[in-house]
């Protein structure tokens, strides 16, 4: 009986696995499948943010750059402008993209850079132990909101995919999740559409992917998926917020 792995081998760059139930390898696997199906693996360059979202790149056997926290859109801007035939995409967390990296993110959206931004949203700063993040839900307990996120002092969670959709240079903006097989396949479609926008050189494509973080949510993995379904998705609805074939 032959074994043939459908997606890129996991013998690259793995120092340790993520936490039990973390879905970042799943997201990475979906990206690997999409790159292979679109036949752009050999041209791809990933620009990584800092954080647990780094795990997303583990299943990818492609060139990658890791720089400063929050700055992948700047780094990707340079690479894509200098080498436009490469498929350039960022992989960032919610804090990397919308806290420290908000300026970098907005700069890329304004300029309508023709690369892809992937923001993995687990509603906290995971690597550092579970602090408040821009997408933390109202009332959610984190290590820096021990009484739950207060709208008075911490504001409301930010809706990044909706925000990205308002920029004229953005060709595609969607939010997916991987909390069940149906979501998995929808997210794969969104990621494929996003990369296709880059292949077709239309404009910036953005995909936000909700992901479980059992360790910092203090829930079991299966409970985490339920929390995504019951609480996170109502706050962060799934779907495509912008999908255009030309930028005017």
């Amino acid at each position, binding site marked *: 009986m032959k074994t043939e792995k459908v997606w890129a081998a996991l013998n690259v760059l793995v120092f340790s696995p993520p936490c039990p139930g973390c879905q970042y390898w799943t997201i990475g696997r979906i990206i690997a499948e999409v790159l292979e199906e679109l036949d752009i693996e050999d041209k791809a360059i990933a620009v990584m943010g800092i954080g647990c979202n780094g795990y997303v790149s583990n299943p990818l056997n492609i*060139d*990658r750059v890791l*720089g400063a926290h929050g700055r992948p859109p700047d780094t990707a801007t*340079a690479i894509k402008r200098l080498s436009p035939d490469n498929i350039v995409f960022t992989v960032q967390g919610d804090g990397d993209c919308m806290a420290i990296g908000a300026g970098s993110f907005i700069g890329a959206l304004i300029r309508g850079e023709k690369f892809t931004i992937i923001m993995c949203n687990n509603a906290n700063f995971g690597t550092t132990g579970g602090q408040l993040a821009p997408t933390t839900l109202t009332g959610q307990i984190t290590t820096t909101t021990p009484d739950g996120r207060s709208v008075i002092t911490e504001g409301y969670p930010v809706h990044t995919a909706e925000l990205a959709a308002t920029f004229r240079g953005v060709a595609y903006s969607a939010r997916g999740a991987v909390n069940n097989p149906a979501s998995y396949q929808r997210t794969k479609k969104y990621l494929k559409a996003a990369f296709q926008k880059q292949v077709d050189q239309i404009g910036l494509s953005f995909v936000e992917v909700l992901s479980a973080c059992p360790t910092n949510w203090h829930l079991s993995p299966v409970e985490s998926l339920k929390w995504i379904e019951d609480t996170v998705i109502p706050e962060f609805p799934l779907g495509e917020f912008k999908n255009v074939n030309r930028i005017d």
Partner: protein
Amino acid sequence: MVERILVQGNEAVGWGALSAGCDAFFGYPITPQNEIPEWFSREFPKRGKIFVQSQSEIASIMMVYGGAAAGFRVMTSTSSPGWALMQEGMSHLAAAELPCIIVLVQRGGPGQGSIRHAQMDYLCTTRGGAGGYKNIIVAPASVQETHDLVQLAFYLADKYRNPVIVLSDGILGLIRESLEIKTMDFGPLPEKDWAVRGRERHKDKNFRFVHSGVGTAAVLTRGYPNYVSWLEHMADKYEQMESELKYESYQAEDAELFLVAYGYPARVCKEAVNMARTEGLKVGLFRPITLWPFPYQLIKGKAESGGKFLVVEDSLGLMVEDVRMAVQGQAEVHFLGMQSRHLPTDGGMILPSRVLEEIRRLSTDEER
């Protein structure tokens, strides 16, 4: 046929970068270097090269990071407050060992400071920033030298896989002088096999990983067994970089008093030396062209043979610390700085007559 044009120092940065084969410029407006991004915005796109005005200096330096990671010759420019913002990117560039140049046109500081010239960034450039890295700094003192040193900087950056700083100031950036545009060849350089270009472009078809996280297990991806062994490689590299020392010696052979200056004050000092020599005063000038590496041995030698030093810097006393370190207590080191400007304002300058006054005072003291 030699092509000569009359341009500002800031524009000479552009002509030098073009001669060096620079592929991209990323920058942000800040006085007194706006002529630099403006030059690139005019001259680069029409030559098929990249110009991006970023949203901040934090962005500019990280764009440089990306362009350098992809194996291109890239640069940015800024002034002192923007330089403060670039510290994060500089540390990452040094860690990832990425070649690039940063042109810093100094202005008064700290904070927002003044929008006019000063020399207040000596320490925060020569000492490296967060994380204890080192970088070569070249300091021109004319429009021509700005153009030439930009090219040398690109070469040294590629040679050592390290950022190189070109340290200018608000006067050098804005004065207009004759420039001979020429392409300078400093020698062959190895291919950038480490750069990220997409797997299809790598001969071995293995992926490349450029990153600045060498203190963790990630160091394995750089081919080092652990953090300290990588640091040892960096220490070796910094030692090799010290061989790039450059300085100019003016009327120093028989001098008893040595002026030490860089940038616009170096030209002022040359004038002062000329004036002093007509009065029979034995004074000379050392002008470091690389501020790092610094000519410690040269100064130590003169200290041991009885010389006296006067450091002239448009600051409250920064390079003077290096001169004091060089003499190791064996010679007098005096300082003439911002408090001696001809006007106590942001537009005040250190003028030759003031330096001459100091030369006379120090020479008279000798006769006691």
